[in-house]
């Protein structure tokens, strides 16, 4: 009874959550077990056919592609973003807020527009090729568009602020006297980084990775614009199945597969941070 009263304030939030997240989720799961008629309408007939189909090697390849893209995006944003977060935390307060502002600012610009910026930069007749040719470094335009790498650049670019902010928060929380103790005990800066800073910022790294990985699985307009459909990702496939293929049950099955991947990553994340919390309670 007491617990109920204490949690009463959470009830409206839970209702909203149920309406906005729970119902669509259940809907997707239910649809993934249904069939469709020739016109693409959903038919109330239970089937496992959709799941059988996504295990087809052609479709499994799409899962692998998406996983690779999301994983590499996490890796790239970590490698580039960690130093940014680390250096930012060492700036004096005024410059630090400026840097954080600059990192967050692109969020307020349409992501479609920013992706389009890469098209202008990387296109065969784009800025980079024009500059390279004007300088005489290359004879003909470099083919930079429509590759897996281009999609990776675009996705990493779109999501790197999440990584930086997550890592920055954990670097900033770091007790500076631990670094001093490390130097005092004879460690070099490099040793201090590897033995103290890095292990203590694992929660930030894991958090950033999760925040980047999840949307990277589903983004489809970046691979449409920059990848040119050369590599098929889950997002594109689902998008196509719903809008053109008119096969919503199969799209739903893919969505469930994607959700399973996300749950996998989140559970790894929570395990990583749980171990860490024990040590961080000092």
């Amino acid at each position, binding site marked *: 009874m007491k617990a109920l009263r204490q949690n009463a304030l959470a009830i409206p939030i839970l209702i909203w959550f149920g309406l906005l997240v729970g119902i669509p989720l259940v809907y997707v799961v239910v649809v993934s077990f249904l069939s469709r008629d020739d016109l693409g309408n959903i038919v109330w007939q239970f089937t496992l056919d959709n799941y059988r189909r996504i295990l087809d090697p052609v479709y499994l390849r799409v899962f692998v592609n998406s996983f690779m893209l999301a994983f590499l995006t996490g890796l790239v944003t970590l490698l580039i973003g960690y130093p940014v977060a680390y*250096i930012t935390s060492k700036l004096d307060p005024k410059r630090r807020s400026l840097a954080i502002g600059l990192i967050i600012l692109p969020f307020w610009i349409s992501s479609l527009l920013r992706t*389009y*910026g890469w098209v202008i930069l990387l296109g065969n007749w784009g800025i980079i090729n024009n500059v390279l040719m004007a300088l005489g470094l290359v004879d003909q335009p470099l083919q930079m568009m429509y590759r897996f790498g281009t999609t990776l650049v675009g996705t990493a670019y779109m999501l790197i602020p999440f990584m930086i902010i997550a890592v920055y928060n954990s670097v900033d929380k770091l007790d500076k006297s631990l670094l001093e103790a490390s130097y005092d005990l004879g460690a070099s800066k490099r040793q201090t980084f590897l033995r103290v800073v890095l292990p203590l910022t694992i929660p930030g790294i894991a958090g950033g990775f999760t925040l980047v990985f999840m949307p990277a699985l589903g983004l489809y307009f970046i691979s449409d614009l920059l990848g040119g459909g050369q590599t098929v990702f889950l997002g594109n496939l689902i998008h196509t199945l719903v809008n053109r293929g008119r096969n919503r049950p199969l799209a739903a099955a893919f969505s469930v597969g994607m959700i399973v991947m996300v749950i996998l990553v989140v559970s790894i994340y929570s395990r990583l941070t749980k171990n860490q919390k024990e040590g961080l309670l000092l």
Partner: protein
Amino acid sequence: MTKANRWQTIYLAVFFVILYLPVLSVILYSFNANPSTAKWTGLTLDWYRELFDDLKKHQPARYSSSAFKWQSSLPRFPLC
């Protein structure tokens, strides 16, 4: 904690340049006289003129054509 050194400051500066490069490219090409992004044929303000003309013609500017397109692309799930 030690202050950021020179190399670190340079790294940060390079990062911010790359972060804003695509945005700046889009802004730059909004002044391109050629309607294609593949060619640069000189500066123009034509696109801005057209934009403001458009805004005047369609009084409620909020309902820009892109919003209509967005609506029509909404997945139509049957209510079951």
